């Protein structure tokens, strides 16, 4: 690894405090371990996938990277800048400069667009804030962005409710691209869309990456879209990574029992496919009191023979940059 990664996250922790009920004497009674010490890096112009079930900390990770929820501890480097330092400096110009580099596409295009603004207002708002385009060029930029995401000029005067889900997601992408970001965090961008429209948005994201060489952090619970769009994938379980690998490697030879179960439980659209589903017993434990040792141990069939209750596995490189956190493998 001679090249410096574009985005590097080191030992990121994000805990949310839980308070007792009542108006007076609010006491902290616990901590939700949303993200529990994860590290990864993303190279420029590639797509890094974060996969996991609901509540495993995917979105918390993304929000911590953007400092929408500042991380509890850990450092995040975007190129050479440490993001936490910039935010601590409280220098507005510096923070805006950083915000221009990274943008977020939210999960639900029905909730993330202001219903009282036209598409033109929505897309031009970032231009107003960042002032990186002179005022007389705003409209040119608007039409350029609309064209980029496959919308027509006349759409600019419309309101979000006049659009379908897929078109709304295009508007969200155009808004994110307005500031010419280098990193785009896409949080389940196609989860709320219909299958026939999903393909359009996934193709759009890929085209934009080729055209503008943007780096993506792609968050999803849907492994089949992840396989389609990502170069490298991390599987998350209860706030920690269980496995990181190149996409093909992960899908062809998953090492961690959780990844194996996750892959086997995706319904295959082929009635004659061999179905050797690994059905996991139980459910994801609470992140308030995560299990001791390996987090996956209460649901894992190998837990007994490898004493996973006591031994906490570390991420180990098994070759080709394929990292696995499992006592069975190491």
């Amino acid at each position: 690894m001679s090249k410096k990664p574009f985005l590097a996250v080191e030992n990121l922790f994000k805990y949310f405090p839980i308070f007792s009920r009542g108006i007076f004497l609010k006491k902290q009674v616990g901590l939700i371990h949303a993200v529990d010490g994860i590290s990864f890096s993303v190279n420029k112009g590639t797509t890094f996938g974060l996969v996991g079930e609901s509540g495993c900390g995917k979105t918390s990770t993304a929000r911590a990277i953007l400092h929408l929820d500042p991380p509890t501890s850990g450092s995040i480097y975007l190129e050479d800048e440490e993001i936490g330092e910039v935010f601590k400096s409280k220098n507005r110009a510096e923070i805006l400069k950083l915000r221009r580099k990274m943008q977020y596409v939210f999960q639900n295009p029905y909730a993330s667009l202001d219903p009282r603004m036209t598409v033109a207002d929505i897309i031009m708002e970032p231009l107003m804030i960042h002032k990186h385009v002179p005022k007389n060029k705003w409209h040119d930029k608007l039409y350029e962005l609309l064209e980029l995401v496959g919308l027509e000029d006349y759409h600019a005067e419309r309101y979000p409710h006049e659009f379908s889900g897929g078109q709304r997601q295009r508007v969200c992408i155009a808004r994110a691209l307005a500031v010419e970001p280098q990193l785009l965090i896409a949080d389940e961008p196609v989860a709320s869309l219909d299958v026939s429209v999903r393909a359009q948005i996934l193709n759009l994201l890929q085209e934009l990456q080729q055209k503008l060489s943007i780096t993506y952090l792609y968050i999803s619970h849907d492994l089949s879209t992840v396989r389609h769009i990502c170069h490298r994938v991390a599987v998350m379980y209860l706030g920690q990574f269980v496995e990181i690998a190149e996409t093909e490697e992960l899908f062809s030879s998953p090492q961690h029992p959780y990844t194996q179960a996750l892959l086997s439980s995706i319904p295959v659209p082929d009635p004659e496919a061999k179905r050797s589903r690994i059905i996991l017993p139980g459910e994801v434990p609470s992140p308030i009191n995560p299990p001791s040792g390996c987090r996956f141990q209460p649901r894992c069939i190998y837990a007994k023979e490898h004493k996973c209750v006591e031994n906490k596995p570390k991420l180990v490189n098994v070759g080709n940059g394929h990292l696995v956190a499992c006592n069975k493998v190491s």
Partner: protein
Amino acid sequence: MAPKEILKIENLKTYFDTWAGIVKAVDGVSLDVREGETLGLVGESGSGKSVTALSILGIVPRPGKIIDGKITYKGENLLEKTESDLQKIRGKEIGYIFQDPATSLNPVFTIANQMTEVIRRHQNVTKKEALEKAIELLRLAEIPDPEIKIWNFPHQLSGGMKQRIAVARALSCQPSLLLADEPTTNLDVTIQAQILQLMKNLKEKLGMSMILITHDMGVVAGVADRITVLYAGRVCETADTRTIFYNPKHPYTIALLIAVPSLALRREKLAVIPGTIPNLIEPPSGCRFHPRCEYAKAECAKEIPPLEEIEPGHFVACILASEIDMKSPLEAKANE
């Protein structure tokens, strides 16, 4: 030879009269469910899957109305029945699992309360017997410690547990037909696998028929015996599961198979169905899929294509079905 039909829907039309115009949510749907089989009802949002299921039980929300058609259940037309007769069928003869377990359970009652309500309504049992029955059902649905869990409120349970309770409740009077409306859409994949397995086991154990409503071709591939594909309120294609996947004849069915990113078939670029689902107030003339169909000809916009049987048990509503040679992506893969 063919097994007996338990439910037959003919030319069902359910319209919603709104201020913007009449929404033709279901516009001439015909399908049938045979005894002991699982029928997969596949379509995107707004294709009329749920409204079809709600129409069967006569619980279409206002302003929806069944305009025309015939729903025959065990030889009787459900649309001619009175409300009190229908109440004897709902829950007892036909069970229903709703899409979202979080909203289909009442948050202010315990599970015990909600389970025994159904049992006592349809069966002549005492409170105590009903409770025992309910616990037995929860055990059948593989809920750990049912004696304790039954006294919980819905908010104390996880999504997967709630859906198990919804399954148990729908099965409480041993219905002959189960309508499952996207039962796993809101669940994680590992939990989805658990629930699908559970439903499959219970269906075999109790010998029910089932209509499984879903938008996920992967789910129906593993569970359904036959599949009906809906688009914009009309049936595109009905056939057994293997035929739908390996020998589909309707361009929309094929498009659905191609557009889904799948683990089995990796492609550089996803094939795209252009455009979006049509407005159901003024649906496209003729075949409703023609504005998005790559094979469309001028005739397609003129007449609504009838649902024709092109080979035994394989019904297609496309005038070009026999002319154009359409390949299933699975077939292409098998030939490689």
